[in-house]
């Protein structure tokens, strides 16, 4: 499920369960590639929460996580960062990480 992230709702949205946080930019090519991957993920696994953080809008959180290159993806489980990836990742890479976080 896609969730529109903001600086205000960020902590609340990552505190429980497995959440994929996508820091992105509107005019970023690799972010658009990742967006397609995340859409496919959402279609197949609608129970995975995907928190979309526009780095132009969510400046405070982006700074807190030292986001420089985008897309910048964090995988949270119960409020803690469990994995971090920079750049457009493949569907299979993301699935592998989610599989471990959700079920192991």
């Amino acid at each position, binding site marked *: 499920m896609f969730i529109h992230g903001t600086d205000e709702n960020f902590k609340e949205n990552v505190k429980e369960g497995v959440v994929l946080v996508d820091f992105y930019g509107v005019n970023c090519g690799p972010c658009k590639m990742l967006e397609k991957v995340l*859409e*496919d993920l959402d*279609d*197949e696994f*609608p*129970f995975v929460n995907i928190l979309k953080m526009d780095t132009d809008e969510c400046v405070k959180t982006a700074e807190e996580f030292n986001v420089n290159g985008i897309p910048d993806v964090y995988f949270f489980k119960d409020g803690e960062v469990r994995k*971090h*990836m920079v750049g457009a990742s493949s569907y299979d890479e993301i699935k592998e990480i989610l*599989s471990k976080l*959700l079920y192991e």
Partner: protein
Amino acid sequence: MKSKLISLKDYKEVEFEKTQKIVFEKEVLERALHRISRKYKKKEKVEFVEKGDVLFLKLESDAPKFNKKGTMVTVGGNLFDEDFEKMLLGHKVGEKFEVEVLIKDETQKVRKTAVKVEILQGQRTIFPQATDEMVKDIAKTDENFKGLETLKEYERKIKDEFYQSEKQNVLYTILKEVLDKVIEDSTFKLDEEELKELYELRFQETKEILEEEENVKYDELTSQQLEDFWEVSTFEEVEELFHQEIEYEVSFLLCILAINGGNSQDYDLFAEEEEDVDVDLLDTKDVFEYIEDKVNFVFL
């Protein structure tokens, strides 16, 4: 650079396949059509489980992964367990039944275990067929599809994009093969001290990246992690890999500098700032354009 190029293989003498076929993958069109129809997707309740259904399951077993009061699983998604998911097909929502699965125990030994399954809920996503109206809709919001009005136009655009993208992939693959052959057939005098210094620099960079991005110290990596990162199982193999990559890197630089008319003795291998590197001297453009000129593409 202290390392030297002794003789350079002419890249124009390297053989490669001049006719390249690119076959359109039907799956690409299916995904593209799916992309425009997903906005109109609907959900419905499931009666009998099919592939793609999202189920809310209660599982009981002596294996922790299969012992959950409630867990969501997409059947056939292979995110939970491929074999187990197949066993759910055809069952009814609300049904209770037992299956046997293979698991790894604490000693990594594989054994069978019984799992009691209850399908608490099921949901199916229905994606409608793509239409001209959907194409017009996406044309309003996506610059890439601006001006498109029909499904036929959309399909043509997807095919064109695919062919162009694959063409680039093929050309870059040939470029790598040609450059690898140039390096293989050229001769060098590599400076051992220079290689050692570069090796230590790259190794240190890698260790820092591991700590920063993966939260793990190099020396504490397990065999499995070595396998995941480098497809080897020992530290010695990792180090050997780094030595080979450094040798390749230096050999590549010597060749590409020579192709571009640069002087390797003026090139600073350890330049820290990007402004200190003349990127034109490292460009493979000439070789790429030569290959592009020679290759004939057949689009199927």
